[in-house]
């Protein structure tokens, strides 16, 4: 089959783009400042940074504004922009033990070392529209913590629930030797199957939140076998560390907000899954999630899917590695779905020709005679 080129529509396209710009900015509507998006629509900004695979709050806020709140489109804008930037270096790997914790909860144990810190959370609020927000104008009053008698406390490193479980022998974190291993990078090599663990985690970390939630939900509801308990869910700041170009020492450039999830899974019939070759002890298996920004839904989904992919190995069609990793990328999926809007005149004409030909053969009088 060959392709046929057409021209036309340039004027209509120009006018459509002009209308789109005008509809983004109705007359007399005050400009939405990028800093307002950055400061007040944090969940959207965090989601776009994660799915765009580029951490910068200002750029993500600009993308949200430009995309008129369409977060998949905003992530696409961020991904496109990142292709114009040079990659300076890889960071020194950060360990999540280094996190300055803003929130930390466990659904596995009531009492955990360091305690359960709810941080800023809407988990316990009723999902009722707050009409008081309709009346908000101007700027909120300045909150001066010192006036409220705030105390200063030093955050001590926290023992994780996984540390406790490991000490008891309930879990075993395998492959510690792998720390020096060079991870795969799917932004330079593309995804290949079977994917390495590092490639898989990278793909999950920049996956689309909705797709990941849906796939994790499918597993939890029984279409898969993973239904974990959250040993720990944490939000906090991780240091971004690089090697100093002169001294070669590690220096901290800044901090990146992340959400981390440790999921502990039992086996299918209560007999816990044994982890690692040569390990005869019954143990719980683990799933891990780590994503940019505060995005708890995605971090939990990542931990579930990490475990699904470790256990799946062709168990059912949807638990297949290619199926999951190819379908959770927002930019890939929106591009493919929305390409259906583009002209398919020739391919559809071909389909129509086949149908017409079929109909000619099956003219009732001919067929029935």
């Amino acid at each position: 089959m060959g392709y046929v080129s057409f021209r036309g529509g340039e004027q209509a396209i120009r006018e459509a783009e002009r209308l789109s710009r005008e509809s983004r900015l109705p007359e007399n509507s005050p400009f939405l400042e990028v800093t307002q998006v950055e400061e007040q629509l944090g969940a959207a900004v965090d989601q776009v940074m994660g799915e765009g695979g580029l951490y910068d709050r200002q750029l993500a806020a600009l993308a949200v504004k430009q995309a008129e709140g369409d977060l998949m489109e905003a992530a696409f804008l961020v991904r496109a922009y990142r292709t114009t930037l040079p990659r300076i270096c890889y960071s020194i790997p950060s360990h999540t033990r280094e996190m300055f914790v803003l929130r930390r909860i466990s659904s596995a144990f009531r009492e955990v070392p360091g305690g359960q810190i709810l941080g800023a959370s809407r988990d316990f609020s009723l999902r009722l529209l707050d009409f008081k927000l309709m009346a908000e104008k101007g700027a909120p009053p300045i909150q001066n913590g010192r006036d409220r008698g705030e105390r200063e406390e030093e955050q001590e490193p926290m023992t994780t629930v996984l540390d406790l479980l490991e000490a008891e022998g309930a879990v075993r974190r395998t492959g510690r030797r792998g720390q020096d291993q060079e991870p795969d990078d799917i932004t330079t090599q593309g995804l290949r199957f079977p994917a390495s663990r590092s490639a898989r985690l990278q793909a999950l970390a920049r996956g689309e939140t909705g797709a990941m939630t849906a796939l994790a939900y499918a597993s939890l509801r029984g279409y898969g076998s993973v239904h974990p308990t959250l040993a720990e869910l944490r939000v906090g700041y991780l240091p971004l560390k690089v090697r100093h170009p002169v001294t070669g020492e590690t220096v901290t450039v800044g901090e990146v907000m992340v959400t981390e999830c440790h999921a502990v899974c039992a086996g299918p019939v209560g007999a816990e899954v044994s982890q690692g070759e040569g390990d005869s002890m019954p143990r719980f298996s683990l799933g891990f999630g780590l994503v940019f920004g505060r995005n708890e839904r995605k971090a939990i989904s990542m931990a579930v899917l990490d475990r699904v992919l470790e256990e799946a190995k062709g168990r059912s069609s949807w638990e297949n590695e290619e199926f999951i990793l190819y379908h959770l990328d927002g930019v890939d999926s929106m591009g493919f779905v929305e390409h259906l809007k583009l002209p398919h005149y020739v391919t559809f004409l071909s389909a129509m020709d086949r149908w017409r030909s079929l109909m000619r053969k099956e003219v009732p009088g001919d067929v029935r005679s």
Partner: protein
Amino acid sequence: MAVSERAKRYELIASGSDATLRRLAERVASEAGFEVVRSPEVGMVMMRAVEQVEGIPFNLGEVLVTQAEVKVAGRLGWFMTMGRNLQRALDGAILDAAGEATLESWKEAERILAEEKEARDRDRRREWGRLLRTKVDFEVV
């Protein structure tokens, strides 16, 4: 392992606000001038993290950064900062070079940056103090 003066200086400069770095870099520039070796460059660092199941590093995602390199009194200075911030990268590099050249203006800058770092550390302790108010106190009923 002992941390070099240069690495300590980097962390000190990194804790300063944009406005402070601007003011201090201007003082260095008026004392000794500076020459741009590498103009501020916006780019990305691929951030790596260690996952908690097998303990392997993986690529979490890229972080937008700006870096610059300058020369002050014949000494090289380098600085990298998060985000798109050309002026801050340049100011940080000027201060790093000033430290290398042990200029008088650096000694003053070092004192001011140490105060600012202490204030930031205090803010962090206050933040944790605020967060501790949300620590759950379970009661058995």
